């Protein structure tokens, strides 16, 4: 656990906290972008070059823009709600977040025992990732592609309906 890791982790966690605690919604989206870049640098620190750069390309380059567009196109009012950033149903939200965290923590702890600390990390090249995607994981790849296509078609239909209603 080197100094660089702690620094990147601190930046990521700070960005995450800012993303939920800031009042201005677009500031929250930009803080989320900081979280994404922090994650990308953590991937790079683990020598997962493809994952890191793909994280920047996809998340910062596209998902952050998507989040921002969604905020701007669906925002009803400029002023933040009174009563701070905690909504009325914060109890339920806390329970659900704790449940998700528990599941993720259980998954991480389950996998940690298999990795010795000092062996050389296998050099995961893009070719290996490509072979795996096209060989072993081709079914999940195609299902995700189908899901994304369905989401795109759905978005286009929703937008077309709106345009049709407006006409």
């Amino acid at each position, binding site marked *: 656990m080197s100094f660089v890791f702690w620094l990147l982790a601190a930046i990521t966690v700070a960005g995450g906290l800012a993303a939920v605690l800031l009042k201005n919604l677009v500031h929250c989206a930009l803080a989320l*972008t900081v979280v994404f870049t922090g994650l990308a640098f953590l991937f790079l620190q683990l020598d997962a070059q493809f994952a890191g*750069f793909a994280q*920047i*390309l996809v998340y910062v380059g596209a998902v*952050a*823009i998507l989040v921002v567009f969604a905020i701007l196109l669906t925002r009803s009012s400029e002023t933040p709600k009174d009563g701070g950033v905690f909504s009325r149903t914060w109890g339920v939200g806390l329970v659900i977040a704790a449940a998700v965290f528990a599941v993720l923590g259980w998954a991480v702890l389950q996998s940690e025992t298999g990795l010795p600390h000092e062996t050389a990390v296998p050099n995961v*090249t*893009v070719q290996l990732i490509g072979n795996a995607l096209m060989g072993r994981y081709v079914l999940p790849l195609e299902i995700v592609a189908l899901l994304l296509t369905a989401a795109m078609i759905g978005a286009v239909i929703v937008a077309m309906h709106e345009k049709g209603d407006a006409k």
Partner: protein
Amino acid sequence: MPEKADQVFLLLRDWLVGFLPPGWRSAAGVVLGVIGIIAVFPGLFAITTVLERKGLGRMQNRLGPNRVGPFGILQPIADAIKSLTKEDIVPLNADAVVHFLAPVFLVVVVFMGFAVLPVGRNMVLVNMDSGLLFYFAMGASTEVSIFMAGWSSRNKYSLLGAMRAVAQMISYEVPLLLSSVVIVMMTGSLSLVKIVEAQNQYTWGLPHWYIFTPWGCAAFVMYAVAATAETNRSPFDLPEGESELVAGYFTEYSGFKFALFFLGEYLAMLSISGLGTTLFLGGWSSPLALLNWVPSWIWFFSKVMLSICVLIWVRGTLPRLRQDQLMNFAWKFVLPMTLLNLMVAALWRFMGDGWARWVACSAILLLVYVGAGRVGMRREHFGPRTYRYAE
């Protein structure tokens, strides 16, 4: 001797770094490389601004700037002094932090893209295995900065211009990546150094540049179109053109911050020309085998400046495309052509060596291009008008 001229910058760096204790040498070498990039590319930016203004002027039957220095070559210095001494106005309602960070972020991200371009033999700042992916990751991040600029100004026109710019950049990101993926497919590596080395072979004195293959030529044209749109250059400069007419995402910026945006845009232009040179025009390899004695970095920069000249030429010629026209063009024409190009490149590899594959691939690409062009350019033929009166 030609090898020494070729590697002169590396030799210089090694000599300078030799003065330091051994533990510091590699880090100091990287720092010197960074200093080199920061010195060279803004210098090229200055030359590009003069070239653009004089070139556009001549194309428009007028002289460009010619008062500052002989033939106006010291004009960038005058521009720099002007930008630095202008008052820095931040609107009262603007989001000051984001307003400040947007140009900074843009320039940082664009400079990072230069780190993976091989400007000469053995002359790349960071030799990454997935260099191309890193470059596109940096290119995608510029969109965030444009959005930040447009939103922080609290100006409806800036926001609209920024959204249009981001939509345009995202739309053309896909053809840009897909036309580069063809190159990756044929080379078998994402590393830019390997891509250039794969093009550095000669047959009968002519190089193996990817632009000389049918799929490479098609990919180059599509890359050029997408690159022009990515950097918001004419004819795709509606976000900027709005700033001349109404407003754009630049509008609330003055003085040095505007100069930073300008710098960022031109550096993005240089960097994407550099990438195009690396992918399609052979990077630092010389056009003929017998011209190998010319240093490799001279070839790289000549090719980049040639691409810049073509970009300026296109700017001086074509009118601006409307937003819906350029989005239609991206999604309905360029994207299907890039997918077809991928398949044609696969066919090329499948057919093995020989003249048959040249004929087959060129024929497919040309036929589809001409066919799609005719279909796209068809005009509706209206019959005589009929009228229906309100009863």
